[in-house]
């Protein structure tokens, strides 16, 4: 219980001074223009009489990369769905860029563990799914961005797991998201591909500056990628710590990273 109280202290604290600090950080990589802040105000979510999220207060400054770890069934996916507008809170409100979420948000994009590509459309048409004017050119650009320019004409079925996730990332990038939500997108990949994806994603996040919530089971992944790690347990935030490791981060963990990982694991 004490950890919960501690976490709440942090959260209230965050609203004040850390927002300003993050603003400076964000400015360094021009995130302030793109990313949108996310805010949970007394959010509760229940399905029937099962309470999945309990009075959640949370502030995520624009451009921050937050990782959320927690046990299976802890409500992590539910939290993402609330941000995207796929689900609405039972109590309280969720704000993205200062606007209350009351439906699907065009500025918010999701990446799932399964890449959710349409198998009957070639890669290029999946990336340009919205069929905006000039979608072909922008889709080609986005594919080049994730290193798959030469696979535009392929069917998704022939791609590897990592390639599929990169296509899904390209599809999200096309619509210039201000918030990108990732629900364990790297979980199904082998260790090597996962490290590759981490590097790719870090680079793209730094270039684009969108706000990111990354859900993961992998504490090492959280520490390797995030500015800040939250532990979600029993529908509440059990831990909220900043990760102040310099970027670019080495895939081989430093002593400091190992210490942070052990600390987080203790709270999961």
């Amino acid at each position, binding site marked *: 219980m004490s950890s919960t109280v501690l976490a709440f202290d942090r959260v209230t604290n965050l609203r004040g001074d850390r927002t300003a600090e993050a603003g400076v950080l964000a400015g360094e990589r021009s995130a302030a223009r793109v990313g949108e802040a996310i805010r949970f105000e007394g959010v509760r979510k229940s399905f029937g009489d099962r309470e999945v999220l309990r009075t959640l207060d949370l502030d995520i400054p624009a451009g921050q990369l937050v990782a959320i770890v927690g046990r299976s069934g802890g409500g992590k996916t539910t939290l993402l769905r609330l941000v*995207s507008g*796929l689900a609405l809170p039972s109590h309280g409100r969720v704000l993205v860029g200062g606007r209350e979420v009351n439906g*699907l948000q*065009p500025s918010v*994009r*999701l990446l*799932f563990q*399964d890449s*959710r590509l*349409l*198998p*009957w*459309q*070639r890669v290029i048409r999946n990336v340009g*799914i*919205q069929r905006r004017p000039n979608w072909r050119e922008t889709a080609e650009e986005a594919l080049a961005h994730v290193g798959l320019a030469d696979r535009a004409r*392929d*069917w*998704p*079925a*022939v791609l590897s797991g990592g390639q599929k996730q990169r296509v899904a990332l390209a*599809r999200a990038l096309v*619509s210039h998201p201000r918030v990108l939500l990732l629900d364990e997108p790297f979980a199904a990949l082998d260790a090597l591909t996962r490290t590759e994806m981490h590097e790719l994603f870090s680079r793209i996040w730094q270039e684009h500056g969108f706000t990111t919530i990354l859900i993961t089971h992998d504490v090492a992944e959280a520490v390797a990628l995030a500015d800040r790690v939250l532990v979600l347990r029993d529908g509440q935030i059990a831990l909220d710590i900043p990760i102040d490791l310099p970027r670019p981060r080495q895939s081989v963990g430093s002593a400091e990273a190992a210490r942070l990982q052990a600390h987080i694991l203790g709270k999961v």
Partner: protein
Amino acid sequence: MNGAAILARLRSIALSWALPVFILLAWEVAAKTGLITARLLPAPSSIAAAFWRHLLDGSLLEHTLISTSRALKGLLIGGAIGFAFGVINGIWRPAETIFDSTLQMLRNVPHLAIIPLVILWFGIAESAKVFLVAIGVLFPIYLNTYHGIRTVDRGLIEMARVYGLSPLDVFLRVILPGALPSILVGLRYALGIMWLTLIVAETISASSGIGYMTMNAREFLQTDVVLLGIIVYALLGKLADFVTRLLERWALSWHPSYRPAGAAA
């Protein structure tokens, strides 16, 4: 492919054709020498002659066209109704509640069992045959469309909604292509039922079509023409199957299990 491989391939083709050719030859000899009565089973050569005769006087083409047009009309009407119900019940719960159990009950009636009723209603008019075929194909198309739509990956539909696709776009670009493999299975099954129904209907009551041609020939003991009719039915069935295979290959080229082996993606 090198010379030896081609030779081996030719040999295996020759071997697989050896038995049918032998049977045809034996049959021809047996019929010509009177070992089997020509009235019961005429020689292959007289069936070929019958084919040639009926081709030249235009009657074969005429009967085939009439049968085909009946089959396609029934398929179009029954298929459209089955498809419409499948789509509506698949995407809209209230419709499913109202229609599905009724359709499932009707499905259990063998459609050939209602032939006497159909003759009472329509006589031997064209509509009787078309009606029977339509009833026959309706259910496989309905069931497979419905099942296909219900089993489309929910995750894909959600993704399409997140990306702001309109409901019509979600249907046309996600639900329908996702249900297509199942719908095509239904179509193939329906084509089988279509010919079967037509054969029965034309044999029982018709004044034109392949079924009529064979029944008419039976009265004049022209067994060669009866056999010709059977062969034409078989060929039409084969042709329908071939066309659906082409359709599947074209429509499901994205599907790993429909892609021809070894072809570049």
